[in-house]
């Protein structure tokens, strides 16, 4: 009798632990629900056609949009990809195809440490590297800062997807007398091409929302950017400057911009998920 009593107590304790852990899991995802709820409630009503087609209006004039910031974000992502993709992908190729076990350990370690560098630091570094030297904030500087952030992300993911390619493919190609580098480019990277695209998209989705590294590199601009060596606007920058402004109309636009940015990032992640599902099948 007594032992079954104890057993019941232990069972209850186990059930309680499960309930508490469940509540904690709910609390972890609660902020997501809250943020999305307010984004949709405050953002959807502020989005209209002119939001996507017009430039920001001066203070006090209602209306206007973030067309320049949306285009600017894409320009910056393009510039970032020019830096992050070649360095990241080829670095990943080295890790997966050439590196020695010990060297790879060190390189992976460095990549992971680099991944933990706060994004604002990249802004400071590129400011010293580019902005001070050319005496101007520029789209190039912003793109470089974002590109640096992409490098460790793309390197690590590319390595992972290349390692998924069976060794038999490499052996078969080499046995046919095809040189090593052609084997890597035409067989291994071709087989893993979807995975490499995934790696790039994940990194782009990550840097698309970055604000801190752009504050004093891309700097922001209330007009169109016609020259990449001049300041350029980006969606996150515009959201930030509107959010901390004292004007109600700008606050509404900040919410609208935030909604557009989140939708963009979620769409990118959705594409990634679609691509990885195909690869797994």
């Amino acid at each position: 009798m007594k032992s079954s009593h104890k057993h019941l107590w232990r069972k209850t304790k186990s059930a309680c632990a499960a309930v508490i852990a469940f509540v904690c899991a709910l609390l972890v995802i609660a902020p997501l629900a809250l943020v999305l709820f307010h984004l949709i409630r405050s953002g959807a009503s502020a989005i209209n056609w002119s939001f996507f087609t017009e430039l920001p209006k001066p203070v006090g004039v209602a209306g206007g949009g973030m067309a320049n910031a949306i285009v600017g974000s894409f320009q910056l992502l393009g510039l970032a990809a020019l830096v992050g993709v070649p360095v990241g992908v080829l670095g990943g190729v080295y890790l997966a195809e050439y590196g020695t076990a010990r060297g790879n350990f060190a390189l992976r370690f460095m990549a992971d440490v680099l991944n933990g560098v706060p994004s604002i630091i990249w802004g400071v570094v590129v400011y010293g590297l580019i902005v001070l030297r050319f005496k101007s904030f520029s789209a190039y500087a912003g793109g470089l800062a974002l590109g640096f952030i992409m490098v460790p992300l793309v390197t690590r993911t590319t390595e992972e997807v290349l390692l998924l390619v069976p060794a038999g493919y490499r052996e078969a190609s080499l046995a046919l007398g095809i040189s090593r580098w052609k084997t890597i480019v035409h067989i291994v990277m071709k087989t893993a091409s979807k995975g490499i695209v995934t790696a790039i998209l994940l990194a782009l989705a990550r840097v698309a929302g970055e604000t801190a590294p752009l504050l004093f590199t891309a700097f922001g601009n209330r007009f169109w950017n016609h020259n990449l060596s001049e300041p350029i606007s980006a969606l996150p920058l515009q959201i930030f400057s509107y959010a901390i402004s004292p004007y109600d109309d700008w606050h509404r636009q900040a919410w609208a911009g935030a909604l557009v940015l989140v939708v963009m990032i979620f769409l990118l992640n959705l594409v990634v998920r679609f691509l990885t599902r195909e690869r797994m099948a």
Partner: protein
Amino acid sequence: MPVVASSAKPAVRSIIDRMARPSGVGDRVFKWLTLAMALAVVALVFLVGWQLARGSSLAIQKFGFHFLETSTWDPVAEQFGALPFIYGTAISSLVALIIAVPLSIAAAVYLTELAPIWIRQPIVSLIEMLAAIPSVILGLWGIFVMIPWLRTHAFPFLKKIFGWTPLFDGPIYGVSMLAGGIIIAVMILPIITSVSREILRSVPNLQREAAYALGATRWEVTRIAVLSYAKKGLFGAVVLGLGRALGETMAVTMVIGNTPQIRASLFAPGYTLASVIANEFTEATTDVYLQALFEIGLVLFGITIFANLLAQLLLRTIGSTITPRAVQ
């Protein structure tokens, strides 16, 4: 993602290495090119350190170690001390860890040990979505939703209960160290949860089976066989979260109040290393001011590199490859 057994593992690779002699020019060029790109990762770490040290060399000469222990930040008088920012970064990160660590480890335990199978993947996907929300958007939400709620509901409540301690004393503005800590907690919840989950998943099933065979309940299995086994790895996950918390910028800047002061009360506004760079960098009118901000960057880089090194060492010793990729 199960790693295919026949992937290019070192043993197989040595065969491939022998099969393919680097004969042509193309082979050599390609190998050196990829090596150069891989070394870029190392070069970038040094680039950051070098740029920050170069940008702050004058300030380091002028202020020396005094910089770290003085609490006056007066750009007009050219007096620069980083102490209020170091304090703000430390306290806001500590608050964030106190909130985030129990929640995310419990959530990870739920997702690997206790939850019904069908519910696991949906929750994991939602956590990944939270990780994908940019910092600036959390800050926007913080300014317009969280701060007003904290000011009118949560903070007065806390003050009524804990007002007798210095931590929850003093006037309530809304923007505060506590608000900063809460928003950082939201930012690091996903990364601690997902890394902890990977670690718990890497605990061998033999551990669990042995405990079950002894008649343990599900919770007892988790506590005795899983959590104690994964202790070190979970500590690594927490340190990794700390590394992110220390460098978190935008959301914190928008809710912490940006006042360089050291106050015991969590209701008082504060300032962090990252936010002072974000706020004042473009306003730095004198060379010394800019140099001081570079030095703040150097301090921030130093402590985040230290936290990340420690985290990676802890995570690596448990022998599983954890990649917190695409998690901010």
